[in-house]
């Protein structure tokens, strides 16, 4: 942590230290109370302001365009104005309170929102995972038993394991190969890298549409095949194939979509770290007679190993949580392409079983936590050495 706190030795704000110091039990109580009020002020006032605005708009039956414009103005500008207003209110407090309360006005809204939107839900989800479909009564470990015995769930766990292995492997592999090769181009490196990176900007839903166009299949008699793969098959004189129904290979077809989307990310990050390797080291090896393959294996890969680790974990986490691709491509159960995150939404939204959905979420959470902690650690190390 690189922060150097300045307020203690600063004459201008000497007061705020006084505000922090216990000057009497009465004033401690006051300051604490004011701090709580200060922390809650922005979120609560802001919330009701926004709420009232939209309630009004709903009643007015305003057109979409207006709602959108108001939404953007109130939503985007309103929060800042509220912070400003709360800061003015703190200015009105007696000086010895003001500086003790002010930090809580700044930091409070974030803490309140996090408490409501992350801390409370985690506890609640844990609790619900031990309850029945409508969360009325406790059922013990019933839902967890379901998670590890239901046949679709088992398929989902197996498929997700496949995603975790295949997507990072090919994403990082192709990304690394491309970054290394593109580094050797005389011209056009930037353009080539942009093209690989481009799918990263697209949504999973958009990507699914794009790939539907590759995998599209029509049986004979239902028109000509307009999917690229089947176009090639027909061109080669073969029968068209219903790609997305070929179990278990259809899982692989969906993984290809994610590899297509995320290779660019791996490539850009790896490329940056390849460029950071001192040129002298590589030149020295070449002069000593190392082949290009040896340079790659003995120098480039070991030098960027930490970056490879970070990129791989990032892709592992993303693969664990994959939902959109499977969901948009549809028919997951029939095709045997179910994955854990998709099961959770299916049980929550379509089958309305809170208990099972929560248990699935908890399992996902437990699986992600260690990877994520490791990832944050590595990220911090990387940031620190930059």
């Amino acid at each position, binding site marked *: 942590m690189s922060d150097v*706190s300045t307020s203690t030795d600063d004459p201008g704000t000497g007061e705020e230290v006084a505000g922090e110091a216990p000057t009497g039990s009465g004033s401690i109580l006051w300051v604490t109370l004011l701090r709580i009020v200060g922390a809650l002020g922005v979120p609560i006032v802001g919330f009701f302001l*926004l709420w009232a605005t939209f309630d009004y708009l709903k009643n007015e039956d305003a057109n979409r365009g207006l709602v959108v414009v108001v939404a953007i103005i109130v939503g985007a500008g309103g929060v800042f104005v509220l912070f400003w207003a709360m800061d003015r209110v703190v200015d009105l407090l007696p000086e010895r309170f003001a500086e003790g309360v002010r930090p809580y006005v700044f930091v409070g809204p974030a803490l309140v929102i996090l408490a409501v939107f992350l801390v409370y*839900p985690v506890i609640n989800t844990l609790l619900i995972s031990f309850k029945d479909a409508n969360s009325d009564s406790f059922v013990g470990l019933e839902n967890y038993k379901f998670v590890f015995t239901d046949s679709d769930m088992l398929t989902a766990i197996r498929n997700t394991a496949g995603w975790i292995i295949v997507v990072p492997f090919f994403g990082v592999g192709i990304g690394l190969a491309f970054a290394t090769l593109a580094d050797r181009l005389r011209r056009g490196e930037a353009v080539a890298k942009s093209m690989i990176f481009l799918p990263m900007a697209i949504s999973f839903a958009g990507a699914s549409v794009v790939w539907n166009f590759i995998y599209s299949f029509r049986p004979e008699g239902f028109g000509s095949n307009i999917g690229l793969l089947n176009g090639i098959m027909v061109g080669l004189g073969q029968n068209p194939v219903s790609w997305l129904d070929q179990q278990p290979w259809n899982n692989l077809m969906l993984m290809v979509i994610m590899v297509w989307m995320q290779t660019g990310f791996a490539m850009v990050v790896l490329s940056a770290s390849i460029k950071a390797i001192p040129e002298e080291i590589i030149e020295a090896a070449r002069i000593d007679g190392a082949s290009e393959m040896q340079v790659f294996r003995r120098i480039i890969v070991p030098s960027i190993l930490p970056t490879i680790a970070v990129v791989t974990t990032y892709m592992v986490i993303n693969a664990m949580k994959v939902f959109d691709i499977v969901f948009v491509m549809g028919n997951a159960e029939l095709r045997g392409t179910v994955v854990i995150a998709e099961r959770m939404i299916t049980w929550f939204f379509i089958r309305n079983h809170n208990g099972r959905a929560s248990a699935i979420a908890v399992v996902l959470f437990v699986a992600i936590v260690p990877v994520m902690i490791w990832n944050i650690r590595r990220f911090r190390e990387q940031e620190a050495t930059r």
Partner: protein
Amino acid sequence: MSVGVESPPIRPVAGAAPPREEPIGIRRGGWFVRITVLVIVLVWLIPTIGVLVSSFRQEELVDTTGWWTAIPHLFDVSEWTLENYSLALDTGGFGNAFLNSLAVAIPSTVIPITIAAFAAYAFSWMEFRGRYVLFVVVVGLLVVPLQMALIPILRLYTQGASLYGRQLFPDLDLGGTFLGVWLAHTGFGLPLAVYLLRNYIGSLPSSIIESAKIDGADHFTIFWRLIVPLSVPALAAFAIFQFLWVWNDLLVAYVFLGGTSELRVLTIALQDLVGARGENWHLLTAAAFISMSLPLAVFFSLQKYFVRGLTAGSVKG
């Protein structure tokens, strides 16, 4: 520990040939390298090109012949049409969905950044009890995956919260409202935003903040006049990441906003169209491009920040 001050020396922008000495022989720019790169680029582009080409073809042609058959007639104007786009925007409801996506994405980006910037400033430059512990808690929340929060928040929105039959939190009827989605995105985006901005703001030199204080500036003035302008790179990087994340999100929108034709965002509209009976290929392709247009514009115009934001975003839970 700073994001954005010196982000990796990435140069995906045009004209970025590294100013290195030319090594010996075929190593640099050999035919093998060039052909391999070209092949990978082509493979990567083909799916998008297919959709792009199809989106300008006439309905019956899209439906009966492969898009590649249109390539020979590239300059034959009568082959092409904008009909698909106007259809998708109008009757397909994608114009409306585009507006909704904007209404979701812009506040969902600005609100968390504003709140996180204030918090990051307080964590870096204000003195208060529990400062370090609270910051560690915020960073710790990075590990919580979205899925963990969906059910309780939706229940909070539609039923309120109660304990042993007592209503603790009122039923606010936030399911299917923009406000509900903004707040959800704000909550999910905050840990990363606070973490990144705290790293950046905390690494600004303390001398400038001290001298501002000596000149009589209060915390709000320092924040607004000094910290925010100095933090533009970090703010921009996070803003782009969050904006694209929200724009491309299907899960949160699906859960909290739902799929009614009035409220649905682009990703949901696309999903509906994919799932709908009958293959509306001509609509689908145009719609896909409508949904990609903004991210691609952001991508090409703000590439530098975009890469930074994504790199930083790799720790999002």
